[in-house]
């Protein structure tokens, strides 16, 4: 059993600074766990590695907390970490053959959109996200799925606001085209 990290030898109570660190970390974990989980999932990390990937994001957060200067929100900062972690996991999963590329999955048979289950919708969304390049995927996820504002995303990604808008426009057009192709409107 590893030693209790918050406890100094010779003392009987948790050391205050590290105890506060634990509280801060727990607060961030509680607030952002779900965000990190679904973000990694949307970025293509499949369940066999998803648990470890989520942990990796928070481990990076612990290691790099001193680099966070509050210019962006915790959420967008964590998204950046998650994006890097997801990139590494996707490569690892691809090498290990754990998962077929999402865009190689058999296409869903066209059906009325109203009858598409939530799970089907999620699979289609995964395939769509996998088909985007990193830049457009980041913007599409943050705007359309996480409902962040374009200025906030521009700050987090370190790009101009117009760049965010142009990426979003392109991603939306691609998404609409994909929907129309797979789920043509009923006459």
């Amino acid at each position: 059993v590893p030693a209790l990290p918050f406890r100094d030898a010779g003392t009987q109570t948790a050391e205050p600074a590290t105890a506060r660190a634990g509280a801060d970390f727990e607060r961030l974990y509680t607030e952002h766990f779900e965000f990190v989980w679904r973000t990694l999932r949307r970025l293509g990390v499949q369940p066999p590695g998803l648990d470890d990937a989520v942990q990796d994001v928070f481990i990076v957060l612990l290691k790099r907390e001193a680099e966070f200067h509050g210019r962006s929100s915790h959420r967008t900062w964590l998204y950046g970490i998650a994006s890097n972690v997801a990139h590494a996991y996707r490569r690892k999963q691809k090498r290990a053959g754990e998962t077929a590329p999402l865009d190689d999955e058999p296409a869903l048979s066209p059906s009325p959109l109203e009858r598409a289950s939530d799970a089907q919708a999620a699979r289609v969304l995964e395939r769509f996200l996998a088909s985007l390049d990193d830049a457009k995927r980041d913007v599409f996820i943050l705007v359309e799925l996480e409902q962040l504002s374009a200025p906030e995303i521009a700050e987090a990604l370190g790009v101009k606001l117009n760049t965010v808008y142009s990426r979003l426009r392109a991603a939306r057009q691609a998404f609409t085209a994909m929907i129309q192709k797979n789920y043509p409107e009923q006459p």
Partner: protein
Amino acid sequence: MSELDDQARGFLERARGVHAPSTDDAARVRGALMARVAADPGLLPASGRSGGRLGWGKPLVMFGAGTSLGFALGLYVAGAFTRDAPPVDVAVISAPTNTAVSAPAPVIVEPSSAPLVDDAVVEPSAAGSAGSGSATTPSDLRGSTQPQRKSNGVTPRATGVNRGRAALNGRDVQAPNGSDLKTRSGSDLKAPSGSDLKTELDGLRRAQELLHEGDAAWAIARLDELDHQGASSALLEERLATRAMAECVLGDTQRAALAALAARFPKSPHLARVHATCAAREHGTAQ
């Protein structure tokens, strides 16, 4: 900028919630993460290190020292697990360590491979009577030849259905209604003074030692003593988990402490382990 049409927007709405983690996912990852952090003490800042914008070095209003310590102890608990180990196979409740005593070891109760208490000590009939509501003292359970525990004059109270309704800080801790529920990060946790915290740590540690030694009734008595002392509630989650474990050991089918733990700390990593232990205990009793 082009907007999504209604069809595409509806599709996104439908897909949005699918990737949300379950409660089990959250508990499993939290436990594994704690284990990783516990295995690498260097991840957390040392005393006096200036923190970044996360507020590592700043006092927190929302999260008092109690929560910090709870998480610290949670990390310690999780240290018993490895990353790849199944999350629920051994019941572990954090054991606050007193470094004045030798090796810091958590209380580990094996639900399946070892009995929670010595069956020669607690006979099935005794456990059964405990569940029926009759007043039973540890000496009743252990037989008259057992030496009396030194417990600062505290006598274990009745081990029946009323036992689980322990008053914590003067309040009944049966499952509150939804509006009363607060997580461990809620503001209802009492920020302890140093002496309060030490009292609570020592008391909880002693209760867990007693439980580990098979004296579940005395463990509950020690927890009762803490409740009546009005010690800090920084370790409330661990106290409830210990009490819940002791109730299972004694065959209390009402499991009021387990219900209280689930109500107050619905994401507690202890829940699955207590459930597993209770289930194993039930299974063992039934055979």
